[in-house]
């Protein structure tokens, strides 16, 4: 391993490519490497970094050390009967799928990209299209090994030191370095998803369809056209599905039902218009995409890649937003506060900020994670290129969200006001207590932590 004291400073950003800061980036191949960096730390502290798919500054640490965890990506143990795998935290979900889908095990939760690490999935306590039935990624972790500031490795889980476990799940790397985890995978009979598609003309019809029938599906997500206004506001395409049983596959597929290839053939219409991103092109894109989708379709078989990770086929699509980068705004409002979702969407479409398809998803129960994002209700996520006036718009939306008892997602937010975040996460105090216990000097810190005084 390179000497952490002399490691070169590199400028780091998240997926949104905003607010770059320099840090000493050190590749970590195993626990000893992580411990060595900890020992060589400066007052600017340390934070872990996975595949940097968080949109913001969560995996950055200006002037300090950043641990590149992606080199520690081994599978340590597999129990096929129990459906459990034990892995190093730097392993990606992409690799997990390549290795285990052929054995009939799928990851318990996947985000919209499979290029995230297990460490990042736990640290952000990520959710997928199945949150309403399966909860977050951390809810499928039997235990994890955490390197804490004192140099100890502690095994924590929902039943051992649950406080530290639930501070780490969603804790954005601020309790220590996740080294290993044991994950309960999801048994599947095939690598295909049986998909139902419904096009809905507006937000109300979409929300009532989801509220009424989402429970019939394992996976559900709606893509909303945020540019359409008036009566068409919230027009959307809802896709829902579940893994196919072997006997539901076409006869030629039944011979090899678990065949899996990570590659996706692109089906998004016209892909993206690089360099042409403005309200008119976005509106045109959304129009074509809406029209092209079927009004109603049942029992269509799709691959894992096409159903879960359509964007992964488009390489560095985060560059289409230009040099100033972009922001993803994702928030949740609780059940019963649907009117806040409607008002937020109205405000967004009125603002005229160009946004590609936004994603609406229904959340099920929350978990004890102190900074975990999901709560029972509705979440909307949309990309917005950085333009002047955006700060004020998003501050305004925050007020609406807080007023409804909702919150924004820490893996995405690059700009919320610290005092507003306090209101959004009532268990932030408990999180700080745990951090004071395991890391009294604040060794683990990040740009996100400093910006928000976590």
């Amino acid at each position: 391993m390179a000497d952490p004291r002399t490691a070169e400073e590199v400028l780091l950003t998240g997926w949104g490519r905003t607010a770059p800061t320099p840090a000493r980036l050190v590749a970590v191949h195993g626990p000893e490497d992580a411990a060595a960096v900890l020992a060589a730390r400066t007052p600017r502290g340390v934070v872990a970094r996975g595949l940097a798919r968080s949109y913001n500054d969560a995996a950055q640490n200006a002037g300090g050390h950043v641990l590149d965890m992606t080199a520690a990506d081994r599978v340590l143990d597999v129990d096929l009967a129990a459906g459990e795998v034990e892995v190093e935290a730097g392993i990606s979900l992409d690799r997990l799928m390549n290795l285990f889908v052929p054995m009939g095990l799928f990851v318990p939760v996947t985000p919209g990209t499979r290029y995230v690490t297990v460490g990042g999935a736990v640290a952000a306590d990520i959710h997928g299209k199945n949150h309403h039935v399966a909860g977050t990624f951390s809810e499928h972790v039997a235990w994890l090994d955490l390197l804490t500031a004192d140099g100890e490795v502690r095994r924590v889980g929902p039943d051992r030191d649950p406080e530290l476990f639930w501070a780490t799940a969603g804790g954005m790397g601020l309790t220590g370095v996740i080294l290993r985890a044991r994950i309960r995978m999801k048994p599947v009979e095939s690598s295909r998803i049986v998909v139902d598609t419904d096009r809905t003309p507006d937000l109300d019809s979409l929300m009532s369809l989801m509220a009424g029938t989402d429970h019939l599906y394992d996976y559900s997500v709606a893509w909303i056209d945020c540019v359409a206004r008036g009566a068409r506001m919230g027009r959307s395409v809802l896709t829902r599905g579940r893994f196919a049983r072997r006997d539901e596959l076409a006869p030629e597929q039944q011979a090899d039902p678990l065949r899996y290839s990570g590659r996706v053939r692109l089906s998004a219409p016209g892909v993206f218009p690089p360099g042409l991103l403005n309200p008119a092109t976005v509106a045109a894109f959304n129009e074509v995409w809406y029209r092209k989708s079927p009004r109603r379709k049942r029992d269509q078989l799709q691959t894992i890649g096409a159903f879960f990770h359509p964007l992964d086929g488009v390489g560095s699509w985060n560059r289409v937003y230009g040099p100033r980068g972009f922001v993803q705004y994702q928030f949740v409002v609780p059940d019963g506060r649907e009117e806040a979702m409607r008002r937020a969407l109205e405000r967004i479409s009125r603002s005229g900020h160009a946004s590609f398809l936004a994603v609406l998803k229904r959340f099920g129960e929350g978990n004890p994670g102190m900074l975990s994002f999901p709560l029972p209700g509705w979440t909307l996520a949309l990309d917005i290129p950085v333009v002047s006036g955006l700060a004020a718009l998003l501050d305004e939306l925050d007020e609406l969200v807080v007023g409804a008892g909702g919150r924004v997602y820490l893996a995405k937010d690059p700009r919320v006001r610290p005092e507003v975040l306090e209101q959004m996460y009532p268990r932030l105090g408990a999180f700080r207590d745990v951090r004071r216990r395991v890391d009294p000097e604040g060794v683990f810190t990040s740009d996100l932590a400093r910006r928000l005084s976590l």
Partner: protein
Amino acid sequence: MIDALGSVGSLLLVGGTSDIAVATAHRYLRERPLRVVVAARDTPRRSAVAEELRAAGGRVEVVDFDADDPGSPARAVAEAAAGGDIDVAVVAFGQLGDAEQLRTDAAAAAHLAQVNYVAAVAVGTELAGRMRTQGHGEIVALSSVAGERVRKANYVYGSTKAGMDAFYSGLGDSLAGSGVSVLVVRPGFVRSKMTEGMPDAPLATTPEAVAEAIVAGVRGGRHTIWVPGAMRWVMSGLRHTPRAIFRRLPF
């Protein structure tokens, strides 16, 4: 940290009682509450400014700063940084001096150079060191168009600003890629307590307008700005005016 949309969490005002510094703090506070460190001499004016910024929603700290004291820049910057990272530091201290007196009084001229140039260099060096360590930050240096082409009417003042302007411009270049940047601000004639009683010059501006330009400049990642913007073209013209003509201009 300055966030992805250019919002600021903490602000250090060196020469914190200057009208432009105070206006800049107000301008930022209009967007959101933030930590403001007022570095200035311990005067009633400093207390008043601290109160005023508190009332506007700032979490205000005061630290002692005296441009006459060679040890002060290091102490002030260290004290300011003790409370957390400094996102934006505005270097706003400076004196105009009495042009008439400065013509003949060597001690007064040297003193003006100490305050406007020597102390500014020390403060800039301290800030840059601190911000390099923290890996981020923006230094806003209040220069003046008076330093761009020095006029006979206030050549001592102009020369000190020319020096500090050159220092901060060079400092900014030296910091490229470090996460730290410098914004050099060149206002024209600013109606403020510093220029009280003086007749307005063409393209005169206000502390509020300068503050507005500073906030936009930081947000836009600019390196040099003129206030008002048109000053840039005026100065560009003056810079290239032959000396024989320039000398005869009526200022």
